């Protein structure tokens, strides 16, 4: 039996279809579930091994991106979600999902204290929505990022700037919670726009909980999972044609979803 991915939807989340496609392409089963249906039937979480909160504009970013959707989960689904993450499961929050998971306190959750809000993901320093391709360096060993060193994928957000207290930042660094940073020419972008597209502190693009099983990231791996999605596809295609080569079908973004698939294959083998 392959693992089952539950992709949340509703209230303005909008990347659920391409996110599900990524899981399915990686060989996982999955379904898109409206948050109200999960609240009505929380058992759906028990039947899932992977929870994905995809990108979007839940509640129009009103009262802070991801805030209202997180409030809804917290009030209606929190206990069930606790049970879910206590099991050997994987959770990913992408973009709006990142803002929601941060507001839920699923990350960084120092000392497994899930539910404490310690990082804010807030208005870009430019106060502008930014849709552009960026480069990431992977900096921890979350199972989602196993074997991944760098990624070229896009961001698209108005509120992607990680902010937190100095203490929290220190602890994130020390305990290896920072999963990915924005880079320029392979080195941390050091806040330089547009390499760091939002002014995020310490160039943070992604963080995890202590286990690494909960990954929250602002960039969109599902929009950079195929070669044809890449911003340099035209150049790459032309080069391949001249050299008589065939381009690989997939690009960096798919690795996360393939890692999720592999995680459960391994887990299954262990239990077998």
């Amino acid at each position, binding site marked *: 039996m392959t693992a089952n991915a539950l992709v949340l*939807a509703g*209230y*303005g989340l*909008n*990347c659920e*279809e*391409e996110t599900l*496609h990524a899981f399915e392409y990686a060989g996982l089963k999955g379904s898109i579930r*409206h948050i*109200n*249906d999960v609240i009505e039937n929380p058992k759906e979480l028990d039947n899932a091994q992977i929870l994905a909160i995809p*990108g*979007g*504009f839940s*509640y*129009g970013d*009103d*009262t*802070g991106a991801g*805030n*209202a959707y997180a*409030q809804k989960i917290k*009030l209606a689904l929190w206990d069930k979600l606790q049970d879910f993450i206590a099991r050997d499961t994987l959770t990913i929050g992408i973009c709006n999902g990142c803002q929601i998971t941060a*507001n839920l306190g699923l990350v960084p959750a120092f000392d497994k204290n899930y539910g404490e*809000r310690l*990082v*804010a993901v*807030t*208005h*870009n*320093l*430019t*106060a*502008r*929505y*930014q*849709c552009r391709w960026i480069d990431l360096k992977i900096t921890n060993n979350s199972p989602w990022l196993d074997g991944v060193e760098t990624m070229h994928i*896009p961001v*698209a957000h*108005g509120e992607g*700037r990680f*902010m937190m*207290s100095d203490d*929290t930042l220190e602890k994130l660094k020390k305990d290896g919670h920072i999963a990915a940073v924005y880079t320029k020419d392979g080195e941390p972008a050091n806040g330089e726009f547009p390499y760091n597209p*939002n*002014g995020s502190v310490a160039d943070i693009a992604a963080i995890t909980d202590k286990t690494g099983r909960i990954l929250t990231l602002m960039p969109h791996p*599902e*929009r950079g999972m195929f070669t*044809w*999605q890449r*911003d*340099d*596809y*035209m*150049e790459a*295609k*032309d*080069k391949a*044609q*001249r050299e008589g080569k065939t381009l690989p079908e997939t690009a960096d973004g798919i690795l996360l979803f393939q890692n999720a698939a592999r995680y459960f294959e391994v887990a299954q083998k262990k239990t077998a």
Partner: protein
Amino acid sequence: MATRIEVLAPPEDGRGKTLEKALKKQGKDVKIRVVDVYSSEHAMANDEKFVTSLVNPVTQKANDLPKDFDWALEIGFLPGVTDNIGHTTSELLALAGADNDNECYSSRLYLIKGDLSQSDIERLSESLSNTLIQRVSIKTAGEFNADGGMETVIPKVHLDNKGVVADDVDLNVSDEELEIIGNQGIADSDGSRRGPLGMSLLYMQAVRDYFAKEARPAKDIELETIAQTWSEHCKHTIFASPIDDVKDGLYKGYIKRATKEIREAKGENDICVSVFSDNAGGIIFDDEYLITDKVETHNSPSALDPFGGAITGIVGVNRDCIGFGQGAKPVINRYGFCLADPRTSPEYYRDSAKTTPVLPPETIMKGVVEGVEAGGNQSGIPTPQGFVTFDDRFVGKPLVFVGTIGLIPRTINGKPGHEKKANAGDKIVVAGGRVGRDGIHGATFSSVALDEGSPATAVQIGDPITQKKMSDAIIKEIRDLGLYTAITDNGAGGMSSSIGEMAEQSGGFHVELEKVPLKYPGMAPWEIWISESQERMTMAVPPENTDELIALLAKRGVEATVVGTYTDDERAKITYHGEIIMDMEMDFLHDGNPETPLTTTFTRGGEKEPNLPAPTDHEQTLHDMLGRLNICSKEFISTQYDHNVQGSAVLGPLQGPGRVYAESSITKPVLTSEKGVVLSQGLFPLYSDIDTGAMAAAGVDLSVRNAVAAGVDLNQLALLDNFCWCSSDEPERLGQLKRAVEAIYEIAVKYETPFISGKDSMFNDFKGFDKDGKQVKISAPPTLLASSIGVIPNVDRAISLAPKAVGDLVYLLGETKDELGASEYYDLHGKLGNNVPETDSHQNLRLYKLYGRASRDKLIASAYALNFGGLGVALAKKAIAGQMGMDIDLSAIDLPHEKALYSESTGRILVTVAPQNKAKFEKNFKGFEHCTHIGHIAYGNRLNIQNVLKADIEKLDEAYKKPLREY
């Protein structure tokens, strides 16, 4: 007791920092703290659980404002204006345990520290607000402290309309009085008028005669309904009326006829499935899906409230997509803006007393850009393609184009997905937002002061999230259950249009108006019926399905209500609390408007061709050309618009490593299919100053040529026409219109590219006063926007504009003629000239077919369809996009250098070809006399045009990107 919650953002907040930066540029050194304010009268609003839910404890604080500031500036909404943040806050209050009918309101407070005068603060507040829809409150720190802070404002609507009923209107009056009713509206009991019906005397007489026959007075709601239904906006009377010797009118006589002839000529290769009959046009995507397309304008509202006008426009055209056939999924948005120079501040007023100035061009530009951004991004629809065109005559009436492409299965529940029919007996169900006074008599808005009793009726603000919930529920869940038989959107005219149109399928309707859910009590029946409140769809639902449909929508947080029944008694009937307030023949309502034949005249414009000296410094001239607003980069828009949501972007708005703003895009709307959708647009408003025929033909040609250059086959391409005209009651303007329509008929038939949808906006004139109080009329140049949509069999055939490799050969395809009339080059020199580009559709067709073969054989490495600024600009854009040098020789073009470089002759494509494909490429174009080898891609960082210029690419890049970079 009202509660006010103030949430303080951190000092580093991006919104505050950006404002500080902007003020710094004006020499003002300030510190700004941003405070998000929420207000409510609900008893639970000071509940701690609710307050906590509004605050991010990591960065924010509630009700704990700093003391260290000099000015407090608060901006909130006026009563009745859509407040999306307030709406979400209400949902949070409900989550915290309050009932669902609570109301919350949002505002934003800026605490400003710095040396600013009262007038500085007022100027800042003007740049941050629009008094048409917003209230502003300013206090000094002293006042703030003395008052104990800002006032708690609850912008609730109170309408003093208790017990309103439909009024009788006496039409047995003189022609003079009829004319006054048509022009100024129905008189209220106090003698004041309700706002224009926009009906001519001829129309008013037809209405009088109808009610004489019915032997009863007309009700106000009946008159308002007829006015809506017969309006230019809904009926397109100018395109429908006989004009000169064209009895069928321009629409049937040219545009619809072109499509009919093309479809017949193409026979079984016809790509059209649904044309001109639905909310959008539909063509074949593949065996499983159709793609639909619709482009709308939202010009007048955008002049008054640029943000509100644009966001309402984009979410409105999304609904055209959702309302296509049984419901199409929006998969791509596109945009286009025609604006005045944002760096200028022309002084014009709407009134002779000079109290209501027109908005500054910069404010309009920022507002419309933001409106499309908010609407598109929040709806999760990618926006990869668009344009901005500038001319000072767009100062009072900007043109705002918005388009949506949809995807719909060809078969749904065993029936064709594009077909629908409301049957007699089906219930009328309206889903989505509630009805308020929004958009009533929107077009007639003037400088009436807004207060609590008169909510901002003309201005609407879209609510993308309410619509997204409804769209997802309908398109992704309910549609495929087959619960409704027909669906359409509520746009202009609100329910009077949507129900009226659907009832034509069944043969009548009966609406029980008291069942319509309202935003606030006290609305008159006619207001409810014609309100343009947004985010509503109307469905025809068999009675046995209504409960299930309404329950499913409720589960998704969407309100839906049965408001009546479709009938087949040929009557348009409304009751209100049991009383009949409308009962008219359907035939009269829809076809009772008298024909008004039009006559035209036409005079070609233009001046003598100027005799300009050759530029002394060609490099500087090229810089000047690249920096012109119609040519320079609009990257600041592209990066704000989410262009890769849905994971479908193949070829985006910025192409090549040098990020050149492109005119076409390619999208893969079905992730599992290799096919792509190619989009482009073309328009040349300036050419109308010489010849509207040349203007229209050039627009169509460019929209086709851009798409062909990107790799689509001509026979897979369809067109949309959007006419934005001016003064369309003048024979000369109508003559210009007729000439443009004739031109696009000719070119579309030649290319065999059918029109599948279109729209017109006929009175883009600003009538007001200049700085001396003198009356002025500024007419937007007659403009046709041509939009193309096509299907490419595999996205690996996509061709971008950026050159790919050093050593590649550069060819110019098509003929360069002495055609600089109304060109960017002449305009740079303040000239108009006479030789406007004439489009040779016969020659172009040959080229596009040959090009199609070369692109199918993958012989072309890059391609750019020449437009504003001609070959010179095209060469520079290619060098910038590829960040590669070029060596070019113009000697094959038999014109002076500046004409060779800046002629805007249509039908030309600049391509690069890999050396190994040279022989094949040249063989492909054998016999075509205008395939000219003009140079190659070179090492180094220079664009080198022999005997003309050697330009640094870095400098070209700067000239191209600088003008609008900081917006």
